[in-house]
């Protein structure tokens, strides 16, 4: 009986050994192999040889982890450092599994928390997986909580965005209709006005002829003078009402092109003659960063140490270094290595100028509406924290727009008035009723002003809607907002879809204009900022992260004039990602594993 038992036992052992041999492979054999790859290696036990994963050759079981590289891709050495491209899998029980480069195996540094990468006995690694795993799990849970909140907010925002976008689109098409009608009215009024004016002119010429003979000599001179004065007065009128466009070229029947033309013509008209030169200079400066006026004055400011100072000057301005004092000469020569800082100074000066005269912003039509008093906002900024605010692109909209949105009454009114005028005033029956003519002109001006406002509103809306707000318009709410972060002496400000700046005191440096999203909506790119001497135009990459609030952080300049920052936003809290995180948590060892 005993003997029998023993032999049964022996038999059992043999059988199970055979079974183990053929099916289960001990973990030592498959050192460094990820569980999902174990199948691949089974062939070694069944047929004796298998192919390297890249198909380059075959290898035998004895070549598996024999510390000699047979496969280019490291298939035969998952557990040793023999192959340069190999990967080692550590199980890290209690924490997440990890795949490391085979260059880390037995290199004296503990890379896996379970220490499985250091098995040659030369280095002792403590198993830190449970502690590390707990920290990681806690973090993961925090992250999941954040994502859960974020996903909810995002959902809400996406819905909001749909509503807002639909509203904006509806408004746009509404405005376009109104524009069409208003255009017709303006055209009618214009024709009417012209006819009246023609008639008036005829009458005037008639009258003039009569009076001419009498006063010709002395009158002509004083009259010219008066005309000039009148022109000047008109010019000033333009400047004051910078939203008003007097000479609306109604002949332009195409809204988009007309609007663009308008904006440029308006810029021209709105400029005070006295400031034209300076303004032209400023815009020139925009293109080429050399301000010859400032270049003549050498600036001695060192980048990191303003008080020691290293000289600088315009690169191309020839300078007689022999004329410098010893100290200035030292600064001047040193500045060749450190780079010239006058450009920065020039530009700051220019920006100051721009801010003081912010109606002279030479940017696009839209930018004008973004202008705001940065000082006022800065007061709200809490030290070293990020903050945000709206710049409302509609701030400057006057009553017209509220009317537009609230009721169509003005529209009916104007249509009615026009009808009346057209009926009552007949320019073909002289003498022309002067008050009626005035009336027509007034109505025409009014309608024209309204038309131009309508156009700029259309233009802004068109531009807004032309932006890419993400596949679900999840970034819609960021439009018209700015986010700030204060770091040391600088305030960084990021306005999505518009621009990014760095402010120091009163000087502003533009880090970039809105360019686009990159890396499938994970990065916002602002490019073509202010130019750096001897370097590129400034640019900023804003990496987006999931967060319940929109906050700007980690502004950095990894390469000269190439900035980086992160912005948290619910828009990045994707449901799929949340699911991934939850799955990851699911896979994490549960507390009972500890036992």
């Amino acid at each position: 009986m005993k003997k029998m038992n023993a032999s049964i036992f022996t038999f059992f052992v043999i059988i199970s050994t055979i079974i183990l041999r053929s099916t289960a492979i001990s973990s030592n054999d498959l050192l460094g192999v990820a569980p999902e790859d174990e199948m691949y290696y089974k062939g070694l036990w069944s047929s004796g040889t298998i192919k390297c994963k890249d198909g380059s050759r075959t290898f035998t079981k004895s070549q598996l982890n024999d510390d000699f590289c047979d496969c280019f891709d490291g298939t035969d050495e998952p557990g040793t450092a023999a192959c340069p491209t190999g990967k080692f899998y550590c199980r890290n029980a209690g924490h997440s599994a990890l795949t490391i480069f085979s260059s880390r195996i037995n290199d004296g540094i503990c890379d896996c928390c379970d220490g499985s990468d250091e098995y040659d006995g030369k280095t002792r690694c403590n198993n830190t997986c449970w502690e590390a795993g707990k920290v990681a799990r806690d973090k993961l849970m925090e992250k999941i909580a954040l994502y859960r909140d974020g996903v909810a907010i995002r959902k809400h925002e996406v819905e909001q965005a749909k509503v807002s976008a639909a509203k904006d689109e509806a408004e746009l098409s509404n405005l376009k209709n109104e524009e069409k009608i208003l255009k017709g009215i303006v055209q009618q009024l214009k024709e009417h006005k012209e006819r009246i004016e023609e008639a008036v002119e005829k009458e005037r010429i008639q009258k003039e002829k009569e009076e001419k003979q009498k006063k010709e000599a002395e009158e002509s001179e004083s009259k010219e003078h008066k005309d000039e004065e009148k022109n000047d007065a008109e010019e000033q009128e333009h400047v004051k009402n910078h939203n008003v466009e007097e000479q609306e070229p109604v002949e332009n029947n195409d809204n988009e092109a007309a609007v663009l033309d308008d904006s440029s013509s308006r810029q021209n008209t709105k400029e005070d003659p006295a400031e034209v030169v300076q303004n032209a200079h400023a815009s020139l400066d925009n293109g080429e960063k050399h301000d010859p006026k400032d270049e003549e004055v050498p600036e001695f400011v060192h980048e990191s140490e303003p008080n020691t100072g290293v000289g600088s000057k315009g690169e191309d301005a020839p300078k007689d270094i022999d004329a410098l004092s010893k100290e200035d000469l030292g600064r001047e020569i040193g500045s060749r290595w450190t780079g010239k800082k006058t450009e920065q100074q020039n530009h700051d000066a220019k920006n100051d100028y721009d801010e003081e005269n912010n109606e002279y912003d030479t940017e696009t039509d839209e930018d004008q509406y973004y202008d705001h008093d940065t000082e006022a906002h800065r007061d709200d900024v809490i030290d070293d924290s990020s903050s945000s605010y709206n710049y409302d692109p509609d701030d400057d909209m006057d009553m017209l727009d509220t009317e537009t949105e609230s009721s169509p009454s003005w529209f009916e009114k104007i249509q009615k008035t026009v009808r009346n005028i057209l009926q009552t005033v007949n320019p073909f029956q002289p003498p022309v009723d002067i008050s009626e003519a005035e009336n027509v002109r007034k109505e025409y001006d009014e309608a024209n002003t309204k038309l131009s406002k309508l156009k700029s509103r259309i233009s802004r809306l068109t531009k807004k809607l032309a932006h890419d707000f993400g596949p679900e318009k999840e970034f819609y709410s960021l439009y018209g907002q700015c986010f700030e972060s204060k770091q040391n002496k600088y305030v960084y400000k990021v306005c999505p879809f518009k621009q990014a700046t760095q402010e120091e005191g009163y000087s502003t440096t533009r880090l970039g204009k809105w360019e686009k999203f990159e890396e499938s909506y994970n990065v916002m790119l602002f490019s073509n900022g202010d130019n750096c001497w001897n370097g590129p135009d400034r640019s900023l990459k804003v990496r987006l992260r999931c967060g319940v609030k929109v906050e700007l952080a980690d502004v950095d300049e990894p390469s000269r004039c190439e900035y980086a920052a992160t912005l948290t936003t619910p828009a990045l809290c994707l449901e799929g990602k949340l699911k991934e995180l939850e799955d990851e948590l699911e896979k994490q060892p549960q507390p009972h594993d500890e036992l």
Partner: protein
Amino acid sequence: MKSIVVLHHLLLFFFLLFSHVSSWKKEEFRNCNQTPFCKRARSRKPQHCNLIATDVTINDGDLVAKLITPNRFEQNPDQNSTDFQPNPLILSLSVYQDGILRFKIDEDPVYNPPKKRFQVPDVVVSEFESKKLWLQRYTKGVIDGESFFVYLFDGYEAVVRSDPFEVFVREQSSGKRVVSFNTHGLFDFEQLRVKKEGDEWEERFRTHTDSRPFGPQSISFDVSFYGADFVYGIPEHATSLVLKPTKGPGVEESEPYRLFNLDVFEYLHESPFGLYGSIPFMLSHGKSHGTSGFFWLNAAEMQIDVLGTGWDAESSIVLPSDQKRIDTLWMSEAGIVDAFFFIGPKPKDVVKQYASVTGTSAMPQLFATGYHQCRWNYRDEEDVKNVDSKFDEHDIPYDVLWLDIEHTDGKRYFTWDRALFPHPEEMQKDLFSRGRRMVTIVDPHIKRDDNYHIHKEASKNGYYVKDASGKDFDGWCWPGSSSYIDMVNPEIRSWWADKFAYSEYVGSTPSLYIWNDMNEPSVFNGPEVTMPRDALHYGKVEHRELHNAYGYYFHMATSEGLLKREGGKDRPFVLSRAFFPGTQRYGTVWTGDNIAEWEHLRVSVPMILTLGLTGITFSGADVGGFFGNPDTELLVRWYQVAAYLPFFRGHAHHDTKRREPWLFGERNTELMRDAIRVRYTYLPYFYTLFREANVTGVPVARPLWMEFPYVEATFNNDEAFMVGTGLLVQGVYAQRARDATVYLPSDHTWYDLRSGTAYKGGKTQKVEVTDADIPVFQRSGTIIPRKDRFRRSTVQMENDPYTLVIAVDGSGSAEGELYIDDGKSYEFKEGAYIHRRFIFSNGMLTSVNLAPSTSKFESDCTIERIILLGHTTKSKTARIEPSNQVTDIELGPLQIRSGVRSSVLTIRKPNVRVSDDWNIKLL
């Protein structure tokens, strides 16, 4: 030939005109015409010198003579004052072992010259004097007049001809000359005088005035090299390996090669203009004689003309016409004649002879031979951490992370900007936990700030260089107003060295090493961006007398500091920009502020080869180019070329875009990783070569002609170079190159290491080039050790096994060496190292011990793979003795790298220990 030279200058002219007019400020530097001694010397005609050697005697083992101006000659037209009667000069000539002739010419103290002329101390190694051959006698004879002969070396003699005075070396049997001095009578020695009424000694350059209180004191002379096809050496110039003629028929408007250490902003890649360092050592090489050398130990400004054939057509000097000859003119502002002739006759003989005078290069630590990552500037601790972790993330090995000037507190060296680097020790320890070192910069200009401890001590102790009036010299550099430590004084050097003690340099740890920049010295508001020549050093020596050696003494003091802090146990690593003969004993140099252009990549190769020829083998150029942004292809190529050059460091100006290897997309990351890994693969070979350089002075990277001195086609090749005797590296210096033209020297088979393809030598081969690598060939008859595993840094590679690559020659044999030590200490000097010679012949590889049998150094490293190139065998196995094991032979890869497919005979897993004697026989 003439038209080529003209074309060359025309091109140079257009280049100057259009491409770099705004960067290199030519007018801010003196040319020869603005330098009175140079202008005068250059305008002299042959046979100007009328000295004769008299009173020849043997004294203390030297041959001594007086050089006098005989009365029969007219007054020297060069001397202004009519009543001037030159005093006799003293010539003393000594002979040293291995074919070295040294001769000095100085004023005779008997005549009480106003001042002792400066002789450069601490350059000639102390052992050199022990190699002196004590002269007992001379023989007298007649060669174009009375001459005195002394034995120099087997088959060579030194000759002093009396009238006209001349010194030369010739082969005894044939009488063929090797190298000569004053053959053209251009020797001139301006003796110091007492200033007289009406003497105008001041010199002005731009706004700077040099008071020149001792008046003119320059020296010039001609040196001729016989049997010479080309001359080489005299760094540092950004120019071709071969020194082109600067004067003579067909050469117009050219400057001499200038040796004056200067901080040159955006230097040109093709110019005789002097850069950061100076080594007045020239080598000549030709098919008929071989190699010879001339070295002038002098630290004042020097100008050297290479005279084109026919420059002396109008003189009546008759020289043997059967010997090709290159004449040169040497001019220096001050000092004495302390000159050395090296007879060669092989290239390696000359560099060894030079090394016996100035020393061989220091044995670097193993880590220093790896890859270095630098930038002006890694901003703060976070930046450092981030860059470091990116190397790991991309599995790219590197050994050292560097911090430039911005890491300091206001450019006060030995301090830290605590806002950016609050925890320097922790930062260094963290890096070192992964085997990585750190290097910080320490420059010689000291901020004049009374709260700065270095300044306080230096000013209190009078350790600064003085201006002409005797006050501490005050110049402008990075920190603003600065003074400069007077490193010529050994006491001050010792004080400086103490500043590197861990207790003094707060925040430093044993894994921190040093970088010396701006040590020309650079003085932003000084004449030519350096120190005024009338500034005064220790011993009342004027700066003009030692200018070129200032940076050398600074480098020396810093190196001594690192040695001291570890009680002499840890080999220092100090990188210096300025250099002088002897620098090789103290550390490494790099070629300064180069530019991210293909031409600068190209010129970096001859610049580094020239440094190697003149003693400084551990040198390199900033990978990628310091100024400007390299396009990606250039950057990748730069890594691929620089991986084979001795000092391998990426560096960039702060205005450039970041360019760490992982920033240019996956493919380019892979290419740069491969380039860096290739370097790490060959580290055992490099380290063995560094050891050879340490013992013999033969450089790691060599011009082809050093290995193939009889192959004329190699003489002016500076696009390719040899690493040791075994590897030929062909650089790629053009955009979108699809192929490369490679000259493979004769009588060898060359194995393309990309494919294993064998090429017959003796002709120019056109080989395919891809973006993956540059063409590199292993020469038949060599065995090269590698380590084919990659780690984070050299530290983790210590125990990894070796691969041997055997390329057999026509007779089926090959040889190679492997040197291993602890990689950091000086125990190798006590014999603690492994040195093996591998010999393969008749199908058997044998490992022979070259180290002392008492060696205490041990290694468990084995050889995991032996690759056989050019060997045909049908055997499938090999037997290892004495263990009597049998191992497999199979087809395997030549390199284990993605995309490289090659099948070469491989002995699999012999697993013999490198420290043991064994042999492996193919069965």
